[in-house]
């Protein structure tokens, strides 16, 4: 289970950022554990020493100084409390910082992979990776690093101190602690790792299924599949319960081996110490002291078994995070972006593209100057939307080039291109929040007047006004509060606010009555007279406004008869 994960993900850079804090936390943690050891060790000696002195008669009683060890007990107790408090505060804060950084990092990693993500991963799964795995990864120093470091330092000190009094006892303690601190964690790992991997897989699947069920509820119910869906979730949950309980009983058995081991170790130390006592190498008071020391020492190795369980969770979380890193980036950003050319034409030359081993575009050559208007028609699935994604550089062609003013698109960053080219996609995504928020997403600087103007252009203004909260009406998740036509028009209003030089419209008049579609196209073109427009459509409404009309057939563009207007 300790083989390195195949991916590029490593926790190290994140830990390095929090290095100082983590080190301080580790020091405090060691201090607290050692104080705890000292406290028990000293109070065992105090009691036995006082008792021995009590038996020894009046001289021994007067010789025995109780003030100093009593002060020592108070000192250790205070150090333990303060160090423990400080350690917890520091390390939890550091862990949360690491988690936060991991969350931002995972978003940064996912952003350029949006295209691969859409086809290869399920949102529910990614969500649980985001919330759960980043937390698991961030907890690494707290759950694994700290207990291991503390147990190591503590064990060295405890064995050293015990050996100083009686080497045989020290040896017995060292043996006991290495079984408790190494063998038992190993055992718990061997017994639970396979189950915990299965458990994580099943949990991920259950969460993804639940999210899918929630988002597809309408379709599931309309297909009479509600009960079947619930039954399937039930089945998943039952399997998961079995795995979790199987893991729990294995872990509990191993955990309970530790107190048994502790007592065996106490007995062996007592055996060695009593020999030394009889040989005169130890005093009466030191025997209870050593016994108490063993009890305290084992408290330090107790967290190691849970640390081993946490380590396995960490490894799995790291593997999953690595799998996300391994998703291909469809369109890598240029290392040194060049400046955007002004008023330059957009051109495709001999573009060829296959998706999933299926040739979509064969040989497409086409150019669009600013202010020019072209339409592309063709049957469903002919690759029209793929063409639009090429122009937006969401994908790169296999052969040929897509250029803006003679510079291939891969010379520009996505952000640069986003200012230059605006696209109305067939399934626009609206963000949760109000109509206003969605418009501001498109253009953060937009004024109220600009927003209203944009809504006017797409004929949405009156409808938004009629809504109870106007611009502040909530759209619902994925715009569920809006009708299909309203969603599309709102998405178009977003693009108008951005005033791009090129406009790619994928089925702009869909879900709209023909008269409204015609009016809208007219308004949009009037609002952006300088823009080069590529309109993908199989509806007739936009065609009268176009300069040229092409038909995409068998992966090639064919100029339509009478297309030149």
């Amino acid at each position: 289970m300790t083989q390195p994960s195949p991916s590029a993900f490593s926790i190290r850079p994140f830990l390095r950022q929090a290095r100082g804090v983590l080190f301080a936390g580790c020091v405090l943690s060691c201090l607290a554990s050692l104080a705890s050891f000292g406290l028990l060790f000293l109070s065992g000696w105090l009691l036995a020493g006082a008792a021995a002195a009590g038996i020894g008669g009046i001289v021994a009683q007067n010789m025995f100084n109780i003030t100093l060890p009593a002060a020592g007990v108070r000192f250790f107790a205070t150090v333990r409390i303060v160090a423990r408090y400080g350690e917890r505060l520091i390390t939890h804060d550091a862990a949360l910082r690491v988690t936060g950084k991991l969350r931002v990092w995972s978003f940064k990693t996912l952003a350029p992979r949006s295209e691969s993500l859409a086809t290869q991963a399920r949102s529910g799964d990614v969500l649980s990776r985001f919330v759960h795995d980043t937390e698991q990864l961030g907890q690494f120093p707290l759950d694994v690093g700290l207990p291991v470091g503390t147990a190591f330092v503590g064990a060295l000190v405890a064995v050293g101190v015990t050996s100083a009094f009686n080497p045989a006892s020290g040896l017995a303690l060292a043996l006991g602690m290495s079984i408790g601190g190494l063998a038992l964690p190993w055992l718990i790992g061997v017994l639970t790792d396979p189950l915990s991997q299965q458990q994580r897989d099943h949990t991920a699947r259950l969460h993804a299924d639940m999210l899918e069920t929630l988002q597809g509820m309408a379709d599931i119910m309309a297909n009479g599949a509600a009960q079947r869906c619930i039954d399937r979730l039930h089945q998943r949950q039952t399997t998961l319960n079995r795995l979790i309980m199987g893991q729990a009983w294995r872990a509990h058995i191993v955990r309970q081996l530790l107190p048994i081991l502790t007592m065996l170790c106490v007995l062996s130390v007592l055996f060695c110490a009593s020999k030394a006592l009889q040989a005169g190498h130890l005093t009466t008071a030191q025997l209870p002291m050593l016994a108490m020391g063993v009890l305290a020492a084992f408290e330090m190795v107790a967290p190691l078994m849970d640390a081993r369980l946490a380590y396995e969770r960490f490894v799995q979380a790291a593997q999953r995070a690595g799998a996300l890193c391994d998703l291909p980036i469809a369109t890598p950003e240029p290392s040194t972006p060049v400046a955007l050319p002004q008023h330059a034409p957009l051109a495709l030359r001999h573009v060829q593209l296959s998706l999933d081993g299926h040739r979509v575009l064969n040989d497409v050559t086409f150019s669009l100057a600013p202010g020019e208007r072209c339409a592309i028609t063709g049957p469903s699935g002919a690759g029209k939307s793929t063409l639009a994604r090429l122009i937006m550089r969401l994908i790169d062609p296999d052969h040929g080039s897509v250029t803006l003013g003679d510079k291939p698109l891969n010379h520009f960053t996505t952000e640069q291109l986003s200012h230059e080219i605006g696209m109305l996609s067939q399934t626009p995504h609206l963000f949760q929040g109000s109509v206003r928020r969605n418009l501001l997403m498109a253009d953060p600087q937009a004024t109220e007047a600009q927003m209203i103007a944009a809504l006017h252009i797409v004929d949405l203004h009156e409808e938004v006004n009629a809504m109870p909260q106007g611009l502040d009406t909530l759209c619902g998740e994925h715009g569920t509060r809006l009708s299909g036509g309203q969603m599309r028009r709102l998405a178009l209003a977003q693009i108008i606010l951005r005033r791009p030089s090129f406009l790619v419209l994928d089925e702009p008049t869909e879900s709209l009555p023909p008269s409204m579609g015609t009016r809208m196209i007219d308004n949009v073109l009037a609002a952006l007279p300088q823009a080069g427009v590529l309109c993908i459509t199989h509806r007739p409404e936009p065609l009268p406004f176009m300069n040229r009309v092409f038909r995409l057939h068998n992966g090639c563009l064919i100029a339509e008869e009478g297309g030149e207007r």
Partner: protein
Amino acid sequence: MTARLHARAPQTLSRLTRLAAVPLAGSVILGGGGAVFLIAQMGILAQIITDLAFRHHHALNELLYAGLLIGCVVLRALCQGSGDMLGDYAGQTVTSSLRMEAMEHLFRVGPVGLAGQDSGRIATLLSEGIEALHSYISRYMTRAAAMLVTPLLILAMVAKLDGWSLLILAITGPLIPLFMALVGYSAQSLMDRKWTELLLLGASFLDTLQGLTTLRLFGRTRDGLTILAHQTRAHRRSTMAVMRVAFLTSAVLEFFSSLSIALVAVLFGARLLNGTVAFQEAFFVLLLAPEFFMPLRSFSASYHDRQNAQSAFTPIAELFTLPPLCQADCPSSTSAPLQSVQLDKLCAGYGDEPDVLHSLSAHFNRNQLTVITGPSGSGKTTLLRVLLGMMPLRSGQANAQRADGTHCPLESLTIGWVPQSPFLLAGTIADNLRLAAPHATEDALQDVVQQAGMSDIIATLPEGLQTSLGERGAPLSAGQIRRLALARALLRAPQLLLFDEPTADLDAANAAHVADAIAQASSGRVCIVIAHRSDLTRYAQQTLTLSNGSWTQTGAVS
């Protein structure tokens, strides 16, 4: 049905706990047994140490005691282990059944009732939120009981041994839970805030994730990052506020317990020096004193679990209070075919908002295709939702009449629905079709695919019906997804067939093909199509136009 569910829905955490009363009780009893063996174990250890140190016994003379000691330790480990196991079992039982009940309830609420909710938020609640209840039940509940049992047993033992120590422990012990409760009340609001922020983070990440492409197209990826970084910071701050209180509580607790253990030790030291108490008793009490505070300390550590659970439970309980809008499917009493569907002065609307549909009446006959048109936002989709039983009527009636003259509610019909943007499950094309009929044969699938005009497209896919679909139906185009949904609806052999813009996104040839399929499908059933395009009206026997929730014109086209 509804009443029974509401009675079953857990309103409070303690009622939820009652579901697992038996394993929890078992866990507490085993914990008590463990405490008895713990006391015995410490007594024997004190005996052995005193024998070796003060009575100068040879180590081998202590073998009997050593055997007894190991016996006690093993028995205690057994009690403790099985007690913990029962606690885990209780936690797992309660959380998994709550999760399933919540899912069932959400289905009763239905998609319209859930429209205002974020599915990312609900998903986080059902996973992380319910998970938080697990440690509350398995740890907090058992420890709360152990906090009473173990210290009382130890006190009883100490009472026999030493009066002074009894006094010290009996005074400091109860102070601890008292103090914790005081701190706990103020910490609850902090914990609530932490949960609100975690849920917000989950919902906004899912939304951002699904809109990643849009963010890229707007060049706003960096802003998405800023928002996310801000939210994680807020979440860290509120979590730390909760933690700080929890750590302070346990620091105070440790202070109390250390103070009283030190007091016990020093008092014994003085009296041992005078020779007024025996070492064995003193050592025994010293061994027991930390164990007296141990359950109190672990209780305080799990008090955090309780607050966590309480904060997580509030929004979960709110899910159960969402009103069920969906009608339960009721099996029909007669199998006679559907003759017609009537709407009679039907009114419907969302939440507290005004009516969307105003007193609609209509008649839809078998073998008849009705096309309902109207401008965007005129209430067409709402009407469909009413017909689908996803939202209740405010007034009026929607009824079905069978061929034998009997009337029945719409809910007893088999309804097929092709939505405007169909949701596809992660799985193969065949899996998605079989959502409607899990046992459909390959031939039946091919048949409906043929009827929906999809067979050519599927034939070009390398794996045919076994092609896996990504989220949102990739690699199928929007038009192809629509036709797949049509095939799925036909597979149910529905009595009432509803379409929402069935030909949108399709080119003329494909649209005509689908229109033909719809016209064919309408024979033998009631068929209603919502469209604002004209390509279906020529197949329609009835055309209705909806505007602002009422009919503006009705016509029958032959």
